[in-house]
């Protein structure tokens, strides 16, 4: 049965995540309470049993990620969600899932840190999410929603990409998009062609071969072969699945780049700049891994100045600098996350003006 509604509904970002997951046939949720994402487990606790699914409040973040590992290994679409302190605890399990080529969706509604930090919006877990986060050298799919509609759409996409590429997928949100309410269209699950899960551990049945889900590779050359295979998969992911949004970049002499909720403030600042007659555009990556490197490279063939804006002291800016042409400049403006540090559109407009002088 579909929970999708074609008409618009007014819903909180965190609830949109849970609603989309159920529509995407997620039938197991394991989680632990943490602000600012607790609406996600609360929605699942209320709605998942109605769909014949399993909601379980785990004893810990570590318990939750390992339950996800078990359910995914058993072939069921499953997810967990948390925020910074909890996501740190889950890194062990995420590494094992990556090593075991297991799908599974992890939602990180970022809050400020380090440590207990605060519950305000942050983008400072970009490194943790896009660099693998745990031990051993691996990447996971990372999607960055900038609206409640994208909380819904990208959660569904996370399940599909995770299944197709056999790796964990993370929805990297923040407390702004998690906590705000917007009108969305709850689209039905897309009819994506998914590979058959022949590797699933479900009891081998009579006459079937044994299936083993594991990350231990002790044989000569086995571990290296695994890594090369994953590198090829990451490349395929980058070639086929990179997603981004461009706003008024065609004639832009300065391109602002930002992701998630910060990109919305940046979009308003870009509009202010256009009103003032400045040729400014916006480049918003939607997939943070794979990072849309080729799109940045293409933009920088013509536009030689980028302004990266983040709610952190600068993390994505590394990827932007690695992606643009060698003769393009990348300026940075960011503020450390925390109560009161969310920039205003006017503040970002000032930064645009300051940098635009260099090209004007």
């Amino acid at each position, binding site marked *: 049965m579909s929970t999708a509604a074609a008409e618009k509904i007014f819903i909180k970002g965190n609830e949109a995540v849970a609603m989309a997951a159920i529509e995407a046939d997620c039938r*197991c949720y394991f989680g632990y309470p943490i602000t600012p994402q607790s609406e996600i487990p609360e929605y699942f606790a209320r709605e998942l049993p109605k769909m014949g699914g399993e909601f379980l409040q785990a004893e810990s973040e570590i*318990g939750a990620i390992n*339950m996800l590992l078990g359910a995914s290994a*058993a*072939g069921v679409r499953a997810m967990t969600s948390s925020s910074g302190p909890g996501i740190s605890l889950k890194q062990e399990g995420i590494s*094992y899932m990556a090593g075991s080529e297991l799908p599974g969706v992890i939602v990180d509604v970022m809050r400020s840190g380090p440590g207990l930090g605060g519950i305000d919006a942050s983008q400072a877990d970009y490194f943790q999410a896009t660099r693998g986060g745990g031990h051993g050298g691996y990447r996971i799919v990372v999607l960055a929603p900038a609206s409640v509609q994208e909380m819904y759409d990208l959660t569904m996409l996370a399940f599909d990409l995770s299944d197709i590429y056999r790796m964990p997928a993370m929805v990297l949100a923040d407390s702004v998009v998690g906590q705000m309410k917007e009108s969305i269209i709850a689209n039905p699950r897309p009819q994506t062609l998914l590979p058959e899960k022949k590797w699933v551990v479900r*009891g081998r049945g009579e006459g079937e071969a044994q*299936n083993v889900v594991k990350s231990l590779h002790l044989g000569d050359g086995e571990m290296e072969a695994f890594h090369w295979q994953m590198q090829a998969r990451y490349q395929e992911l980058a070639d086929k699945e990179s997603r981004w949004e461009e706003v008024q970049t065609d004639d832009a002499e300065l391109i602002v780049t930002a992701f998630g909720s910060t990109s919305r403030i940046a979009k308003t600042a870009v509009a202010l700049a256009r009103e003032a007659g400045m040729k400014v555009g916006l480049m918003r990556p939607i997939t943070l891994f794979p990072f849309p490197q080729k799109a940045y490279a293409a933009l920088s063939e013509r536009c030689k100045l980028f302004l990266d804006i983040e709610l952190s002291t600068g993390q994505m800016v590394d990827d932007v600098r690695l992606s643009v042409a060698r003769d393009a400049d990348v300026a940075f403006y960011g503020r450390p996350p925390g109560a009161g540090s969310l920039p205003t559109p006017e503040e970002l407009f000032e930064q645009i003006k300051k940098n635009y002088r260099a090209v004007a």
Partner: protein
Amino acid sequence: MKQVFNRPESLKDVATHFCPGCHHGTVHRLVADALDDLGLRSQTIGVASVGCSVFLYEYFDVDVIESPHGRAPAVATGAKRARPDRIVFTYQGDGDLAAIGMSEIIHAANRGEDITVIFVNNTTYGMTGGQMAPTTMPGQKTSTSPNGRDIRKDGAPFKMAELLSNLDGVAFSARVALNSPKNVLNARKMINTAFRYQVEKKGFSFIEALSSCPTNWGMTPLAANQRVTDEMIPYFPLGVYKNTANL
């Protein structure tokens, strides 16, 4: 001629990596016997842990998930919740279950997850070379307790079969040993019961198997076996600590 003794179908015909005199092989055999006896092989999911037990999938002819250190009960919970019609068991050592995995085992047991946990207690970390485990006995010398376990500093060994028996979610908790034919036969019966309870959806079932570790104890297989008799069983008494059928 009738063949009366066979390798269980649930075990593969391969040599194990276990040291001479180690009881892991016997425990594997008894678990496989139980799966065969109850006709569960084709519907069973094994959950391997970290330590000497990690190669479960090399020896058991069932589907297996390998889990992070100590997390097997959480992984098993996920698998069982995803596929409640399957038989799910974990196989864990003492460092895995009673040290780094204490939270996972306590909570899985308390939730009464319909899984079976096989816990091998050999009073040491075997795979990493004989360090002090949460079950290392008072005064026992290991590579990280060179002067013997000092219970004022390191705490006393955990008695897991007793500890878990206090939780309402636990349907069956027993401690067995493999040091004599009589104890092996009894262990076979207990392991069979533990799996039968899972089939009957009675709740969480737990078997603690006292095991020798001649290599890390620095003993011959015979002397190690004798240590199970002389030192371990008096400290970790054998028996059924919880059986909901008797309540």
